[in-house]
């Protein structure tokens, strides 16, 4: 596979600067509206919180045509170095766009990490270029735990609307937490702080050109940090407000890329996650405060229509992934679905079993992975619809309890997943008929156990 080395312009720039204690990376693609603010916030954060340290801000651009570079240049950064680089991408990669983030985001991160290593930086942070809510404090919160508390990886922790980040809440967070035993609330947040030690480890990896690193760079960074035993913490950054997403972006493709990345990493780290039982929360830095959030409108009826249609048409595909009891329960759910979708409920147990069985099918059907992952879309929409219905009248804390309950259900199901993965018979209780009622698991306290097998 073709490998990308550090571009000449970056090498020359690194030779001129020679050394920097902190590197801030900002990957971008057509973010002229917001990137100026992001650069100014990063620069102000460095000046305010780390005046004694040398720092460099690197904008790695994926070929913007809307004046993003000009916006960066006009941000008037007073102190430190500002570097504008083009994201090195293979020709083929320029034609394939991720459905979230910027094209070549993985390559941009790699360039930032290469620069950080070249400049012998002690800490590195990356922030999205479409942020509207970034403040100078974000830089402090992402960098300080690395520089002064010995952490290797700082994940963001935001306040989000209860309907925002539904893939994170219903799949990525519970699954990552269940697998690796560390509760990182926003594993695909987009803003991260990284130590020199972890930067070195990322650069040693050989999978930078794979789909996982290209399309799922956020979960790739988080998973490696947790699974390989680096010290991980979270920083509370307030609210995350960013530029409106492209309304035409394809949910199915986005879901495929994100879940595909999680499932692919799950295969690689199977020997590690099979050892963990339960979970512990990652340490949280920063002062937590309440913030106002924009309201979000969701169309539940349309989601349920998609679910009905999926149940009607995709039974044969779901058979590849779902066990007969799970498939029967899903079909029964669709059959009993009232016209208006009122009181629709896809319980935690059924959803957890479905996700874990899809994860296993990803492993056992290598040539049908794309089809299987795409067929998850109607089920995912059903889960979101159920979640929206259940949480209509709940406040943020109560919604968090619901998500906590889902996470505990995932953790409860882990022995079944391990047995399935090992090719053993699934333990008693698995494949049980699903009752579609109240979730069985009350929100409880998380704990972590390690088994030596």
């Amino acid at each position, binding site marked *: 596979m073709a490998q990308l080395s550090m571009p000449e312009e970056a090498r020359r720039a690194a030779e001129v600067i020679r050394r920097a204690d902190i590197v801030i990376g900002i990957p971008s693609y057509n973010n002229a509206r917001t990137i100026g603010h992001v650069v100014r916030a990063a620069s102000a954060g460095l000046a305010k919180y780390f005046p004694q340290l040398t720092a460099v801000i690197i904008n790695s651009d994926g070929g913007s045509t809307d004046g993003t570079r000009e916006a960066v240049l006009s941000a008037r950064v007073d102190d430190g170095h500002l570097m504008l680089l083009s994201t090195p991408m293979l020709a083929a990669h320029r034609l394939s766009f991720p459905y*979230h983030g910027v094209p070549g985001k993985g390559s941009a991160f790699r360039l930032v990490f290469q620069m950080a290593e070249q400049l012998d930086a002690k800490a590195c942070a990356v922030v999205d270029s479409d942020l509207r809510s970034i403040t100078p404090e974000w830089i402090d919160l992402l960098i300080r735990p690395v520089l002064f508390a010995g952490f290797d990886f700082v994940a963001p922790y935001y306040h989000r*609307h209860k*309907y*925002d*980040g*539904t*893939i*994170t809440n219903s799949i990525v967070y519970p699954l990552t937490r269940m697998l690796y035993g560390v509760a990182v609330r926003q594993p*695909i947040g987009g803003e991260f702080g990284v130590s020199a030690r972890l930067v070195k480890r990322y650069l040693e990896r050989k999978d930078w050109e794979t789909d996982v690193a290209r399309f799922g760079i956020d979960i790739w960074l988080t998973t490696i940090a947790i699974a390989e035993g680096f010290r991980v913490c979270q920083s509370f950054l307030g609210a995350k407000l*960013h530029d*409106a*997403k492209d*309304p*035409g*972006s394809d*949910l*199915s493709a*986005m*879901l495929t890329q*994100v879940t595909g990345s999680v499932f692919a990493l799950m295969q690689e780290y199977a020997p590690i996650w099979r050892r963990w039982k339960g979970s512990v929360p990652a340490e949280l830095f920063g002062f937590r405060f309440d913030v106002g959030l*924009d*309201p*979000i*409108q*969701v*169309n539940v009826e*349309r989601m349920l229509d*998609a679910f009905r*249609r*999926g149940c009607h*048409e*995709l039974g*044969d*595909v779901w*058979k*590849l992934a779902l066990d007969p009891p799970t498939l029967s329960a899903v079909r029964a759910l669709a059959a009993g679905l009232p016209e208006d979708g009122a009181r629709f409920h896809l319980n935690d147990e059924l959803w957890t079993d479905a996700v874990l069985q899809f994860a296993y099918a990803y*492993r*056992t*059907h*290598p*040539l*049908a992975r*794309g*089809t299987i992952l*795409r*067929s998850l*879309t*109607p089920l995912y929409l059903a889960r979101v619809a159920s979640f929206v219905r259940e949480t209509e009248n709940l406040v943020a804390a109560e919604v968090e309890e619901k998500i906590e309950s889902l996470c505990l259900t995932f953790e409860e199901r882990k022995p079944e997943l391990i047995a399935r993965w090992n*090719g053993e018979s699934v333990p008693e209780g698995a494949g049980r008929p699903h009752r579609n009622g109240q979730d069985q698991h009350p929100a409880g306290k998380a704990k972590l156990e390690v088994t030596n097998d």
Partner: protein
Amino acid sequence: MIEVLRKVLEGAVDRLHHQITTYLPPLLAALALIAVAWAIALLARWIVYRIFKGLAIDKFLRQSGVAFLVDPSGRLRATRIVGETVYWGIVLTGFLLGVNVFDTDLTSQMVQSFVFLLPKLMVAGLILLGGAWLGYYLGRSMLVWAVNENLPSPRRLAVVVRVLIIFVAVVAAADQLNFARTVFLAAFIILVGGVVLAGSLAVGLSASGVRQLLEARPRASGESEERSLWSHL
């Protein structure tokens, strides 16, 4: 009269004797060969079963996902496939050797034809199998895509894709066997031409309608309003 009758009977006995001495030994040899081949086939199948079970090949293939490539339901067992292939391969070889023992023009021609045809049959079989699998795979992909895109009649679209691919495989297999190749080729050209013409007419006649549909789609589904603030990630 008696002398004539005696000669006739002697002639018949001589011919019978001649035929028996000519054909019985090869027949016995052929039967013996077939019996030996059958015994070897049974033994070989037993050994293959033992080896595959001992090495847990089926479990390995299931866990690695290779088993699902052949049969998506995962029920097919490699042990059985390989065992039966070895068994029938040896039985067939024994049968051909047995037939060849007679050393007549007819039997030689039969064996020769079979030997020459066998590779072609195998290639044609593989083409059909590959086509069936590809048709199934792409049909399923089309089905999922059509459902997620909310297109009308997703199952029909999937069936069309599947039938087209299988038909291409049949044309290729017929060409390989040199069997009614012009008929199949003509049917294939007519089919592809018809599909292209229908597609062109559909797009040409309703280009403005398609454009309007594409432009109106996000708004009609409430997508832009919904996604403006809603991030799935």
